[in-house]
Every structure is written in C-alpha cells, then in structure tokens.
C-alpha cells in the first residue's frame, strides 16, 4: 500500500493568514485553481475552552487536468480537486495534502492516473517552494 505518498505535510515559517495568502499566490502562479474553499476552524480537535484553531480546506485543481482526468470516466471527479488542509500552528502554518487515490492499491478510473499524478506533483512542488522560500521544514506524513 502506497501510504507514504498518500499524505504530504509541509510547514511554512509564517503565521496563518500571511501563509494562506502566499499559498494562493503560489498556486495561481503555477496555474492551479482553488475550486472551493472552506473555513473549518473548530473542526480540528482541541482542548475545551481553547480558541478554535484557524484552518482552511482548499480544493485545488487545474481545469485542463480536470478535463483530461474526466474525459474517459467521470468517476475521476471523486479524486479531483485535491484537498489541501491549511492550519495554524503558532508562528508557523501546517499544510497537509491528501491524495486518497494514493492510499489505494486498486484501479483508478480509466485515463485519470496520469493527470492525477501531474496535478499532485505540481501541487507538491508549489508547496515545497514555499517551505524553501520561507525557511521551514518539510516532512512527510507518518505511516
């Protein structure tokens, strides 16, 4: 099971709101689109009485890769857009990318494997560039 690449975690050395702004800019620069955005502050578990941790879920894709993935089988829409969880961690911001397709050892919808991989790689390099630019470490999710 390919659980290593199912989760990618990045830590950006900036506070939440500036980091979120940088993420949006970096995605746009790489021609990646944010198809949807959700404020999920409070969804992440925390101690009773604590202020909800700022968190945002971004749905990221590229219209061209989306079209390519869906061309043969609309079921590919189950995996695109990709989910990017941005959450505050004090003076840093954690970014968690989930790729459910990578957690499977099963057959992806026809024609979707390549565009999904391309989208995943583009997103990974975009986020990696942010961690490099802002002096924070990158870590892979644990298995």
């Amino acid at each position: 099971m390919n659980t290593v690449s199912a989760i990618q975690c990045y830590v950006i050395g900036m506070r939440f709101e500036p980091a979120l702004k940088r993420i949006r800019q970096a995605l746009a620069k790489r021609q990646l689109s944010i198809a949807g955005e959700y404020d999920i502050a409070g969804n992440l578990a925390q101690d009773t009485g604590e202020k909800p941790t700022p968190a945002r879920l971004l749905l990221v894709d590229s219209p061209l890769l989306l079209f390519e993935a869906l061309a043969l089988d609309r079921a590919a829409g189950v995996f695109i857009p990709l989910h990017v969880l941005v959450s505050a961690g004090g003076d840093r911001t954690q970014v968690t990318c989930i790729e459910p397709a990578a957690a499977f050892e099963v057959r992806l919808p026809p024609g979707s494997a390549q565009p999904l991989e391309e989208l995943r790689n583009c997103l990974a390099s975009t986020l990696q560039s942010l961690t490099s630019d802002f002096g924070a470490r990158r870590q892979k999710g644990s298995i």
Partner: protein
Amino acid sequence: MTDEPSTITYVVTEPFPQALRSVRKALSARDLRIGGELDVADRIRRRLLIGTAPCALLLVWPSAALEHTLGSDPVATAIAPLHVVVSGRGSRSEVHMLRPLPDGTHSVGWRALSALNQMQAEIGQSMEKIGMRVTLGA
C-alpha cells in the same frame, strides 16, 4: 495493484437535472450535509471553452456526530468532504463515489477511518434508494 475499482457507481434512470435533485434529496434524508457544489461541466466550458456532458460534484460533509470523531485526526479532516459526482448520460445519470477505504489504510487513525467508512456507507445507502449500483464483471 489489484483490479478492484476505487469508486462505486450508481445508475439513476433520470436525466441529469432531475437526478441531481434526487441525489440532493436522498443525501439530505440521511442527514448528510452538502457543503458545496461544483458545476464541473460549466467550469470546463468557461475556462477551456470546451463543451462536455453535464457533470456536478457534490461535497458531502459528515454529520455532527461523525465530524467530532474525524476532527481527532487531521488527515481524516482533510479527506472530508467526500466527493459525490453526478454526471448525465442522456435519459439517465450516473453517481460516482469513493469505495470504502480498506482496513489497512494506516495513514488514517482507526477511529477516523471507521467514521469515514460509516459516512460512505450512509452515502451508499442513500444512493440505493434512487439508483442501482453498477457491478463490473470480473
């Protein structure tokens, strides 16, 4: 890699607009929240100037009870909302959803995995009310 598909498909014998309404209604009947909806075909048409068959992506959030369990696992929080894809094929429509995650999915804690699979079961049961599951041959 096995030959088992990663998604489940239901066929609804209604054209797209009616099927979409039926899907929304069926999900709501099981207290599944539709947190967002993307008109995929329209998005492709506007951005790429390419016309495609109607297709919509519903973003289904867990119930309040399951949300608390999922919140204990950041990975599970990021997997939700689950995608339910509705696509039109003439006089009928197809609904696609993620197959339940296998037990050995160690990237997600077991409690969160159970909650996710419970959510998927709820979605599947709601789709059983309005459509027929497609079973592919071996």
